[in-house]
């Protein structure tokens, strides 16, 4: 007699309890109690167990019926959560610290390595001195040709030229080369020179013992003077695989007029 639809069908009572004879006041409570009991006896393991449990608990509260239902235990209490949070934070600090340390080491490596190489001389940093020149042995089987070229800046009025076009030598042998400069004007001119080595990579093996570069040289009017360059090619040149095909090195000097504010172009990267 009571309509059964959908979920509510579960609440349907099989037997109609509402009959004409029972429809009066004092039987109403009986009907309600029976309905409640039927509902609460439904297993909580069913699909609508939560719904049923709610219904059951609220209804049982209504009727004062207590039933042991599945109760969920809290997974973490407040105290345990705080403890975990503390541990996580300290762990994160440790990991962060290690990360920063490693990054810092990576950056510090470059100057540290360079300092180490300077101190121990490993990796090819050569300490030059007169002792190395005295102990230097010429590498006989590698003959090189050193070519000379001379240049002046556009505004420089000196005549500047090399005295020899080329010299044949071997690495480890000291050599002397001459340039001539002449001041054709009738005023004293102060010049300053810089040099260049081609090929560029051979420049690191070009060692000057004495020359006329980077210092101001004064020429009186109509004066001509010889300027020597005393140099050698480092014997390690013969062991460099990059220099295997290099047979000729060109040394080129350029003279500038020494003026205030002159920025001399230096060989290599600046």
């Amino acid at each position, binding site marked *: 007699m009571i309509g059964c639809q959908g979920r509510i069908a579960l609440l349907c009572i099989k037997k109609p309890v509402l009959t004409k004879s029972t429809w009066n006041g004092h039987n109403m409570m009986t009907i309600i109690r029976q309905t409640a009991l039927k509902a609460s006896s439904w297993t909580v393991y069913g699909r609508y167990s939560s719904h049923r449990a709610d219904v059951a608990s609220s209804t049982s509260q209504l009727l004062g019926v207590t039933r042991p239902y599945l109760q969920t235990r809290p997974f973490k209490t407040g105290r345990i959560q705080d403890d975990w949070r503390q541990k996580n934070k300290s762990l994160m600090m440790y990991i962060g610290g290690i990360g920063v340390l490693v990054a810092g080491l990576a950056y510090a490596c*470059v100057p540290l390595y360079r300092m180490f190489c300077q101190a121990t001389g490993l*990796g*090819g*940093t*050569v300490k*030059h*001195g*007169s*002792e190395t*020149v*005295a102990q*230097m042995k010429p590498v006989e089987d590698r003959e090189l*040709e050193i070519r000379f070229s001379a240049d002046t800046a556009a505004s420089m009025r000196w005549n500047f030229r090399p*005295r*020899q*076009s*080329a*010299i*044949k*030598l*071997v690495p480890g*042998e*000291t*050599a*002397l080369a*001459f340039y001539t400069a002449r001041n054709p004007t009738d005023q004293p001119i102060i010049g300053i020179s810089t040099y260049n080595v081609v090929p*560029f*990579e051979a*420049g*690191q093996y070009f*060692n*000057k*013992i*004495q*020359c*006329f*570069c*980077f*210092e101001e*040289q*004064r020429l*009186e009017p109509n*004066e001509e*003077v*010889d*300027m*020597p360059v*005393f140099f*050698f090619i480092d014997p390690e040149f013969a062991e*460099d*695989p*990059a220099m295997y095909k290099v047979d000729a090195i060109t040394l080129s000097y350029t003279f500038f007029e020494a003026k205030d504010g002159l920025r001399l172009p*230096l*060989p*290599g*990267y*600046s």
Partner: protein
Amino acid sequence: MSFGSPGGARSFKVSPPQKGSFPLDHGGECKEFMRKYMRCLRDTLGENTKCRVESKDYLECRMKNNLMAKEDIKNLGYGDFKPASEAGNA
């Protein structure tokens, strides 16, 4: 610039000359030695090995005339020569 160059190549450092700059020979005192050296180079077609005596003589002339700091010629790479009596002794 020259960080991390491959193969451990040395960086090209601009360095001043080891013994500094030659003072200019304004008076031409060693011009004769220079001429002898140039003549030798011309004759041998630029062979430095054959003209080492002349270059050594030029440097010794310079040292004698105070145009170069006195130095043992061994330190100038002429170790295979016998040091000269006056100029070579440091």
